[in-house]
C-alpha cells in the first residue's frame, strides 16, 4: 500500500510539474464546455444529456493521452530497470501509475461540474439523481479507458505507439454498441454487454445496477492484470 502511494504521488506530481496536466485540464474543459453549451441553449431543457454524450467522445482522445507515457516512458528512458530492481511489486507499480492517471481524468471531469452547478442555479425540474448517476458513469468510463491505455503503455517503449494502440482499444469498446446491427443475433446480447454505451446509458438514467458495476470493475481488473503481466514478462525476454 505504501509503495502504491509513493508511486502514485510521484506520478501525479510528474503530471503537475510538467505542462501535461494543465494542457490536459484546460483543453478537456474547453472542448466539453463548447460542445455542451452549443446545444444546451438550442434544446432549452434543464438536463445535461448533451454533456454525457460528448464526454465519452472526448475521452477517446484524452484518456490514451493521459496514460500513454505511464509505463512506455519508463521503458524508453530505462528507469523501468531501476523500478524492477527496487523492492516493489509489479502490481504496486502499475496500480500507483494507473490511479494517478484516473485522478487526472477525474479532475478534468470535476471541472465540468461547473455546468451542473450553473444548471442548479438557473434551471428548474432538475433530475439530480440522473445527473449524479451520469457523473458516476463518466468516471467509471474514464477509469475503464485509462486501464486500456495503461495496458497499451505497458506493451511498448514508444509513447506514440502506446497512444495509437490505446486509442484503438478504447474506440473498439466505444463503437461496439453502434455495431450491434451488423452482429448475428445469437451473439448480439454478449456484444452488447461488452459495449461501454450500454452500461453508461443505464447508469446515466440514475440507476446504478450491480451488473454495470461488475462490468466496469471486471474490465478494469482485466486490463490492469494484463498490464502487470506485461511488465512481468519483460524479465523473461
Amino acid at each position, binding site marked *: 500500500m505504501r509503495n502504491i502511494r509513493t508511486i502514485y504521488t510521484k506520478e501525479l506530481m510528474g503530471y503537475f510539474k510538467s505542462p501535461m496536466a494543465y494542457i490536459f485540464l484546460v483543453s478537456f474543459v474547453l472542448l466539453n464546455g463548447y460542445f455542451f453549451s452549443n446545444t444546451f441553449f438550442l434544446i432549452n431543457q434543464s438536463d445535461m444529456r448533451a454533456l454525457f454524450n460528448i464526454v465519452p467522445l472526448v475521452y477517446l482522445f484524452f484518456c490514451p493521452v493521459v496514460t500513454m507515457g505511464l509505463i512506455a516512458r519508463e521503458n524508453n528512458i*530505462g528507469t523501468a530497470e531501476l523500478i524492477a530492481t527496487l523492492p516493489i511489486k509489479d502490481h504496486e507499480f502499475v496500480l500507483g501509475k494507473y490511479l494517478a492517471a484516473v485522478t487526472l481524468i477525474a479532475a478534468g471531469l470535476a471541472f465540468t461540474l461547473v455546468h451542473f452547478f450553473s444548471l442548479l442555479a438557473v434551471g428548474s425540474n432538475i433530475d439530480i439523481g440522473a445527473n449524479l448517476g451520469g457523473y458516476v458513469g463518466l468516471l467509471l468510463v474514464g477509469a475503464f479507458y485509462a486501464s486500456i491505455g495503461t495496458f497499451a503503455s505497458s506493451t511498448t517503449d514508444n509513447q506514440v505507439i502506446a497512444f495509437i494502440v490505446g486509442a484503438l482499444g478504447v474506440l473498439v469498446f466505444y463503437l461496439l454498441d453502434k455495431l450491434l446491427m451488423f452482429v448475428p443475433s445469437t451473439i448480439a446480447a454478449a456484444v452488447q454487454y461488452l459495449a461501454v454505451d450500454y452500461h453508461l446509458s443505464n447508469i446515466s438514467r440514475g440507476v446504478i445496477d450491480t451488473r454495470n458495476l461488475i462490468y466496469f470493475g471486471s474490465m478494469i481488473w482485466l486490463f490492469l492484470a494484463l498490464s502487470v503481466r506485461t511488465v512481468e514478462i519483460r524479465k523473461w*525476454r
Partner: protein
Amino acid sequence: MIRVDNLVKHYGEFEALKGISFEIQDGEILGFLGANGAGKSTTLKVMTGFLAPTAGNVEVDGMNVVDHSLEIREQIGYLPEANPLYTEMKVFDYLEFTARIRGLEGKAWTQALGRVIERCDLTEVVHRPIAECSKGYRQRVGLAAAMIHDPKILILDEPVSGLDPNQIVEIRELIKDLGREKMVVMSSHILQEIAATVDRIVIIDHGTIVADGTTDKLMSSFQGRTQLTLEVTHATEETVQALSSQVEGVDVKDTVANGETFTLSLEYDRDVDPREAIFNYAKASGWAILEMSPFRVQLEDVFRGLTAEGGPDRA
C-alpha cells in the same frame, strides 16, 4: 555471499552467457571486465533480478534470485549501465522518492538523505533538476540512490564510464571507501579503472569466464613478451638489420628509418634481459642511443591476449 552457478542467458537465438560460475565474498570488491557485448551487464542484470536466467542459478546469501527476488532486492543497491534517472525531477525529490520506495520513514529517512547527499557530495545540486546536472553529478545521484538504504551489496554497472579524469578519481575513491564495509561488484571495459579499484578481477568474453583472480595473479599467469622501443642515430641500414642476428633472443618487429635515425620495435621473452647486449652492440656499431624504453606486460595485454580472438565487435 553471492554464488553464480552455471548461469546461462539467451536473448532469442543469441547466447549472451554460456554457463558462467563464480563466487563473491562479503566485503570484497570485484571487478567485472570484458569488451562491449561480452556479457557483463547481462550477468549483473540477472544478479539484481531485472532479468531472469535461462538456466543456472544465482544465490545471494543462499537465496535464489528468482524465488526470493524481493528480499534480495532489499539488500542490493544497483546502478544500471546507462544510469537512467527521472531527469525532470529535482535531485532531492528523486532521492526522497527512492528513500520512500526503500521503506525509509521518519528519522531514518532524514538521516539516509543527509548521509548520501554528504557522501556523494551533492549539496551543491540538491535543489537542481537532474536534467541540468553535469554527467559527473548525475552519476553521483545514481550512486546516491543506489546506496540510500545502506545496502550490503552494491552492484555498479560501468560506474565511471564517460566521466572526466578528475571525476573518475573521485568516484573510484568513493567506491574503494564503500568497499571497506560492503560487497561491491563493478563492471568496466576499461582496465585501468578496474585495476585501480578492485581486489579481484573476473574477465568475461563471449559469455564465458576467461580469467578470475587478483590483479597480480592475472599478470603473472600471462606469459607475454616484453617490448622495447629503441631509437638510435648515426646508424646504417646494414648494422640495423644485423641486430637480431648479433644479439641473442631479440626479434626486430618493426623499423622506421628517417635518414640516419632509426626507430626499432624489439621484442624478447620476459625471462631474459638483453638490454646490456643491445647497448654493447650499439656502441660497437657506432650508434648513439636516443631512447631505449621497455614496456612490461601490462594488465592491458593480459586482457587483450585473453579476449582478442573475439572477432567482430558485438557492442
